[in-house]
């Protein structure tokens, strides 16, 4: 579905991504993990087209998308739930769920997306996506928007951050539901959370802008958990908000 080939990204005298190559197949749930500042969000932004790599190329279902716009990528079927959700004065939760789904949706549908993220639709649909909502609420609405967008490939950037009051199981249910409902779709989750890494088919471990390990959960997870001599930063920094 998606392939990154030799991606380099250099800013402020720092090699932020250093020759990243990776492949994401259809119908997979992939976790990207690694310490804060290792380049996880940068990879997500490069896939969405928000940042342009200095070199390397990006293929989506065989098409070279390296030089196409964010809008075109979104239309091809790439979606991205931001680590820091964006606020909009004036636009309501309902507006954004409608914009995400690409058409007007009925109340029932909107309610389903919201109740899946643990929010009561009637309390939220007409609220502005502004600072009047808490960080955790904004985060959940961001997830609901991406569920409504129904992309072939959706990247969630630390979806669990700031939503501690809401059970992980609900979050995992959403990923599984999307997986089932959107044919051949894949999901990439950037996360520090062991519980989320546990449901992944494959894990990509990033450090200092490089892929340190990549493969089946069974093979990568032990690398993270068994590094007892030097406690794995990944696990220590869970919930980190970089």
């Amino acid at each position, binding site marked *: 579905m998606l392939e990154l080939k030799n991606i380099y990204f250099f800013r402020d005298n720092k090699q932020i991504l250093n020759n990243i190559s990776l492949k994401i197949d259809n119908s997979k749930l992939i976790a990207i993990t690694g310490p804060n500042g290792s380049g996880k969000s940068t990879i997500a932004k490069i896939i969405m087209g928000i940042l342009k790599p200095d070199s390397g190329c990006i293929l989506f279902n065989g098409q070279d998308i390296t030089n196409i716009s964010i809008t075109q990528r*979104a*239309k091809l079927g790439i979606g991205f739930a931001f680590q820091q959700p964006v606020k909009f004065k*004036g*636009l309501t939760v309902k507006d954004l769920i409608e914009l995400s789904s*690409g058409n007007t949706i009925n109340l029932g549908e909107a309610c389903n997306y919201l109740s899946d993220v643990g929010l009561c639709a009637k309390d939220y649909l007409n609220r502005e996506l502004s600072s009047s909502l808490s960080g955790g609420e904004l985060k959940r609405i961001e997830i609901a928007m991406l569920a409504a967008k129904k992309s072939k490939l959706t990247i969630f950037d630390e979806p669990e951050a700031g939503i501690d009051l809401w059970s992980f199981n609900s979050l995992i249910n959403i990923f599984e539901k999307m997986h089932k409902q959107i044919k051949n779709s894949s999901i990439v989750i950037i996360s520090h959370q062991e519980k989320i890494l546990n449901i992944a088919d494959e894990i990509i471990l990033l450090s200092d802008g490089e892929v340190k390990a990549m493969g089946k959960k069974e093979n990568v997870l032990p690398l993270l958990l068994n590094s007892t001599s030097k406690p794995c930063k990944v696990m220590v920094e869970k919930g980190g908000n970089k």
Partner: protein
Amino acid sequence: MDDKFNLIEKNLLKNIADIEKIPMGAYNIRENGKSIGRNTTANIDIVSKKDKPGIDIIIKSNTKNESVHIPVILTKAGFNDIVYNDFYVGENADVVIVAGCGIHNNYCETAEHDGIHTFHLSKGAKVKYIEKHYGEGNGSGDKILNPQTIVYLDNGSTLEMETVQINGISSTIRETKGNLGINSNLLISERIMTSENQFAKTIFNIDLNGENSSVSVASRSVAKGNSKQEFISNINGNNKCFGHVECDAIIMDTAKVVSTPKVTANNINANLTHEAAIGKIAGEQLIKLMSLGLSEKEAEQQIINGFLK
């Protein structure tokens, strides 16, 4: 009755008062300086002034669920229409008042309307006041609106004021003055959009005189093209009171915006706050909407429409 208005008149009325035909309840429709239709009800009287152009709107105590429409339309140019409208709202009345001015100017001369609206709210009265301003027409003549709103709020009364001017007015100076008594509330929401070489200035002078009086001013504006906007607010807390002013402007192209929110506390228990923000559309907002599949132009349009909603 539907055929009373021609297409130009209907379109103006639709834009400023959401009406295309004769409204329900009390109304007075003014066109090019003359009243062209009026209706009163058992509770709401409308009387022409003797000494100057304009009307007195007298609303009886305890009038509930009634509305007054007083739209003004201008379809001729070379014309400066000044009108004084005084509203006397009786005790515990609860009504909706819809005003507004639409100008259709196909000429090269100026068309101007200056409406001076004074509200006297008696004890416990509640008014929702909606005012829309709209200009159109192919002429090069300016379309000018200089409205003044003067508000006297007696004990426990509430005025909720919504003003919208989002299209076609060349120049406007809008002034709102408030005198607030005990336990009274003034809630103002303002929406302005200017483009091309338009100019809009809005001034709020509010005196919080009564104990526990409160005012909230929320102004949102978009300045496009080469337009200029000025926002001035002066809130005086003369008693134990609460005042909050929020002005938010999106600036585009080569537009200019000046914002001067001023709060003055003349009493130790005056609680006054203001927030002012001017900026272009946040890049991350555009990026977010583009990542949902909108083009940059569509994203911009959504952000502006939402902001001015």
